């Protein structure tokens, strides 16, 4: 894992001191809100519906036990004893008091963490595959590149006032668990002629105008990656529109200018930028890479894992859904679901955080990951410890065997917290999870990604959900639109809208009708919902949704 250098340490400390003085000046009246707002946003502090919210970056979703315990401490000391893990691998505290925030930031700095650039028109927290360095079939660990980008982009003087926010995701695995195609820049590490480089995608993004990223460069060698990225952001910084915030993201810049024009400008800019890079970035990348060396894997890690699976059906079901193959024999990647049926997706109590920290430290090489799907991962777990880990999780309410199933739902905070939201997301997610638990259909239905956003900004990634749900305000009433067939994987697809939306009390029955239609129409249990949708198209699902008497009320709103 990356450890802060002296430079990182002193930079973060100085930012905390700076912000402490800014908060003092806001409270004593020397700063107006208009003056203070951009300053607090630069430090991740939002004002939401009921309270302030502090968004803390978890770069590329990687934590150790010390950092996780500190998040628990912050939750207990200055918040309400829990935190919310987000779809951008951040953690949000929903109830801080303004005067306490500098102390919270100081506590973060104590463990090499910060909230810098988790808001504002800057390069945001760099996200990565949550199975980085662990998954079988990985081309290269994306985290050294992600850390290099974090260092380069943090306080980069040229990129503090971009036309709009800018999100970068990196994957080193062909499965693309980082949704790179839905980012301003997506990097896919690939190998060509024995050399590692990146396929660079640009202009992806969800929100109001969803776009799948386009390939800007097939292959950029690692040695050229940083100057190339700098060229892309520099071109966007000049070309990106500042007249209309809804047209300011790079996806619109790419759309309006064309990928060829952007490519030509980037390539011209790259020649100049490359000259300015003395090679220090490569020395830094090499130094960073050594910090992400794999842990000292145990030779005999398997133990009696298979015996426990044979005798304990609950354990077997848990490992069937929550374990992903590790590249190291005898090891497992364990996903701990933060989606217990009826719980708030992505929320963890401070006790749960401490337990996860303890388990990581005791059994799993002291590493934890946060996924954009709002779960926590033990990436390097010897299989011989899985039983003990499962027992401990079971006692803490963290052993839900639902990863990748109906109830493993991504949901943004929605109108329960967010000032931008137009409808609630959380209770919809809770209701769907509870309904399918009650029906005992979850495992029958199989792999399915439901994603819910409480407004058009799409923090819940609804466009790339196999079933996407978008909550809107229609004439003063919550209304939910459904999209089908979205996919956030390597061949990303934006889902297609089914038709008119559904009222708050109709959306869960609507999802149930879709999934009952799927069960009736699929060729067999081997055909997933997404495969069935691709084979059958929209029509049978539309019929299931709308061709029933009971939905007449829901159809009244044809917005």
């Amino acid at each position, binding site marked *: 894992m990356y450890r802060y250098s002296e430079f990182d340490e002193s930079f973060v400390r100085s930012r905390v001191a700076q912000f402490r003085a800014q908060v003092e000046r806001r409270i004593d009246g020397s700063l107006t*809100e208009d003056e203070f707002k951009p300053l607090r946003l630069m430090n991740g502090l939002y*004002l*939401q*519906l009921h309270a302030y919210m502090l968004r803390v970056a978890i770069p590329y979703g990687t934590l150790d036990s010390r950092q996780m315990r500190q998040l628990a401490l912050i939750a207990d000391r200055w918040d309400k004893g829990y935190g919310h893990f987000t779809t951008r691998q951040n953690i949000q505290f929903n109830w801080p008091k303004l005067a306490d925030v500098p102390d919270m930031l100081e506590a973060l700095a104590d463990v090499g963490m910060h909230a810098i650039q988790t808001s504002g028109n800057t390069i945001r927290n760099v996200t990565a595959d949550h199975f980085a360095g662990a998954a079988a079939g990985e081309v290269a660990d994306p985290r050294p590149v992600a850390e290099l980008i974090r260092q380069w982009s943090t306080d980069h003087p040229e990129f503090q006032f971009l036309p709009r926010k800018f999100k970068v995701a990196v994957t080193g695995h062909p499965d693309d668990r980082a949704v790179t195609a839905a980012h301003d820049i997506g990097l896919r590490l690939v190998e060509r002629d024995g050399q590692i480089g990146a396929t660079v995608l640009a202009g992806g993004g969800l929100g109001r105008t969803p776009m799948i990223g386009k390939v800007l460069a097939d292959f950029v060698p690692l040695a050229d990656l940083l100057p190339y990225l700098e060229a892309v952001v520099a071109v966007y910084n000049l070309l990106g529109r500042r007249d209309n915030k809804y047209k300011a993201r790079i996806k619109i810049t790419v759309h309006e200018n064309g990928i060829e024009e952007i490519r030509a400008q980037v390539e011209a800019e790259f020649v100049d930028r490359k000259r300015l890079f003395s090679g220090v970035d490569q020395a830094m990348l090499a130094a960073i890479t050594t910090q992400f060396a794999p842990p000292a894997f145990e030779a005999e890690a398997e133990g009696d894992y298979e015996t426990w699976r044979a005798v304990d059906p609950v354990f077997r079901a848990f490992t069937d859904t929550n374990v992903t193959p590790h590249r190291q024999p005898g090891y497992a990647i364990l996903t701990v679901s933060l989606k217990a049926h009826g719980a*708030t997706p992505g929320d963890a109590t401070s006790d749960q955080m401490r337990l996860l920290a303890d388990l990581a430290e005791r059994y799993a090489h002291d590493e934890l990951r946060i996924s954009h799907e709002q779960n926590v991962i033990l990436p390097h777990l010897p299989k011989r410890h899985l039983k003990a880990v499962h027992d401990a999780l079971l006692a803490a309410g963290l052993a839900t065997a639902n990863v990748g199933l109906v109830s493993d739902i991504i949901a943004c905070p929605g109108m*329960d917290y967010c000032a931008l939201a137009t409808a609630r997301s959380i*209770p919809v997610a809770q209701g769907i999870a509870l309904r399918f638990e009650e029906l005992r259909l979850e495992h029958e239905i199989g792999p399915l990604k439901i994603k819910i956003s409480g407004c058009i900004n799409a923090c819940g990634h609804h466009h790339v959900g196999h079933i996407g749900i978008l909550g809107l*305000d229609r004439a*003063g009433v919550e209304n939910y639109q459904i999209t089908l067939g979205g996919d956030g994987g390597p061949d990303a697809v934006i889902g297609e809208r089914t038709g008119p939306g559904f009222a708050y009390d109709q959306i869960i029955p609507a999802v149930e009708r879709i999934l009952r239609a799927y069960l009736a129409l699929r060729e067999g249990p081997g055909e997933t919902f997404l495969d069935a949708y691709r084979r059958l198209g929209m029509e049978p699902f539309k019929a299931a949704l709308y061709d029933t008497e009971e939905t007449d009320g829901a159809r009244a709103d044809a917005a």
Partner: protein
Amino acid sequence: MPPRPFTPKVLTANALLEGDVVWLDADGEWTRRMEEAALIEDEASAELHLLDAHARAHEVVGPYLAEARRGSHGPEPTHFREAFRTRGPSNYPHGKQEGQ
């Protein structure tokens, strides 16, 4: 087209220090409970109150006028967003509903 008639409103904001929702009451103080808010029924005084609230930036953040109606115990919200602001989130008993 004739101008739309003015509909009753309350003046609301978030407290600077705690961030929680507040409403302006008839004495010009900030209250944590909507039913104690002043229901503003004419446009001129609504605009004046809003100007005044903007000048009280050391107390509150983001003041605005929200639609409201007269209820049996005081002003009530007419929109679900404003209703949520009187309570707190629906997933935990936090915010104003805490301890109730």
